[in-house]
């Protein structure tokens, strides 16, 4: 128990001192994860809508694969991305290994199935409701996808937040592809792993509390954005 208390004290000290290193890795965590989130939602939401609206041959298989991929261990993703991006791998020429870009790629792969699956659930329900109307209005497939995406945006926000949560707390994959390099690819989670390895539980816990606080703040601010919209326009 005293460890947890020390962790809280450490977190508090880190924050009030505006520890330069803490700010750096916190911002990098946000940069990497938010970029990954933007890319992942840009892939996952249309994919979810496509799966809801279109009936194609391997649709069920795709959905099953997506659901299965949600449980994919990040370490495996990290290893695969590592092998692909390694200098001796197929994409080695780009020199992306051990850069934030590599971490973003890994996180995108990890959260796309999650976001797409959650989005698909919501979109499928709305599509069942809208089906006759949108077909009657003589909409194109793209217009249908756009309509259900727009009208289920609050559910999709939840899907995106779930993706954010998984990405921001992820350590296995980004440790492998990022390398946890100081001042370059170190983020909150890999720093926590590092401090735990050194047996500095207080600092590790402190960083953990900072991570939790940051995740809560991001969630709250995004929800607050949703709510202002509710009051203003809805």
């Amino acid at each position, binding site marked *: 128990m005293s460890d947890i208390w020390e962790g809280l004290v450490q977190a508090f000290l880190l924050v009030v001192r505006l520890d330069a290193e803490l700010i750096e890795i916190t911002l990098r965590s946000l940069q990497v994860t938010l970029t990954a989130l933007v890319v992942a939602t840009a892939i996952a939401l249309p994919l979810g809508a496509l799966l809801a609206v279109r009936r194609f041959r391997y649709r069920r298989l795709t959905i099953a694969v997506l659901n299965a991929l949600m449980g994919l261990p990040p370490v495996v993703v990290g290893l695969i991305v590592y092998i692909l991006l390694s200098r001796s791998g197929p994409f080695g020429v780009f020199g992306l290994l051990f850069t934030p870009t590599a971490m973003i790629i890994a996180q995108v792969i990890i959260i796309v199935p999650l976001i797409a699956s959650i989005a698909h659930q919501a979109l499928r329900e709305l599509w069942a409701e809208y089906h006759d109307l949108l077909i*009657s209005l003589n909409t194109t497939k793209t217009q249908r996808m756009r309509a259900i995406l727009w*009208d289920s945006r609050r559910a999709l926000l939840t899907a995106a937040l779930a993706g954010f949560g998984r990405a921001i707390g992820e350590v296995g994959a980004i440790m492998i592809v990022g390398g946890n390099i100081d001042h370059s690819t170190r983020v909150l989670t890999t720093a926590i792993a590092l401090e735990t390895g050194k047996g500095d539980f207080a600092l590790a816990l402190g960083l953990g509390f900072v991570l939790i606080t940051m995740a809560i703040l991001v969630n709250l601010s995004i929800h607050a954005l949703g709510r202002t919209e509710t009051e203003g326009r809805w």
Partner: protein
Amino acid sequence: MSGLLPLTVHDAVVRRRGKTLVGPVNLTIDGTGTTIVIGPNGAGKTTLLKMMHGLERLRSGTVRWAAPDAEARKQQAFVSQTPVVLRRTVRENLTYPLKLSRVPAAEARRIAGDWAARVGLSDMLDRRAEVLSGGERQKLALARAMVRDPKVLFLDEPCASLDGRSTREIEEILSAVAAAGTRIIMSTHDMGQARRLASEVAFILHGRVHEFAEAPGFFEQPATAQARAFLNGDIVE
């Protein structure tokens, strides 16, 4: 002017899970006025309307408009029995079909405002459509169906859950719309409403058109025993 009618239904059949829901149906709809589809519950009224509108896949036969398919789809509208409202404001519900047809935003707003006024939803334009009552939803769905000024309007039991006042309002709108030249094809099980609105009647039984006739004649002198029984309020099996 329309170029859409006549609508010719030829040996059309809709089957689902091995069961024939409708058909084979042979039917021609032309001219002006209102075709009322009546028949006992489960006779296939809804499926018939959806089939003519193109929401049901045909097992066999054809549903053919005088205009090419792509043109024909744009000039029809459909109001279902439990109206679907988009999870948006009333105004956005009304402008959505116009947006799809690339009507300029200002023009779309004006048309939406006009139709909201006609169905009595003017002061609810900025309300979320989900919070509307059943009657208000029905009026919204009707207005939304009308904003693109369709040549043919399908309605499935548009007043099934409405009180007298709302029913009267809707009937007035439908009469005006029909008078303005929109061809209406609508199902109902309110025989009073059928008599008030119909210019011709399709009596449906077991998924087939059992009798198809001009309205005054049908109500006075139905040709078949089943139609007579139905009009008398007897149970028709």
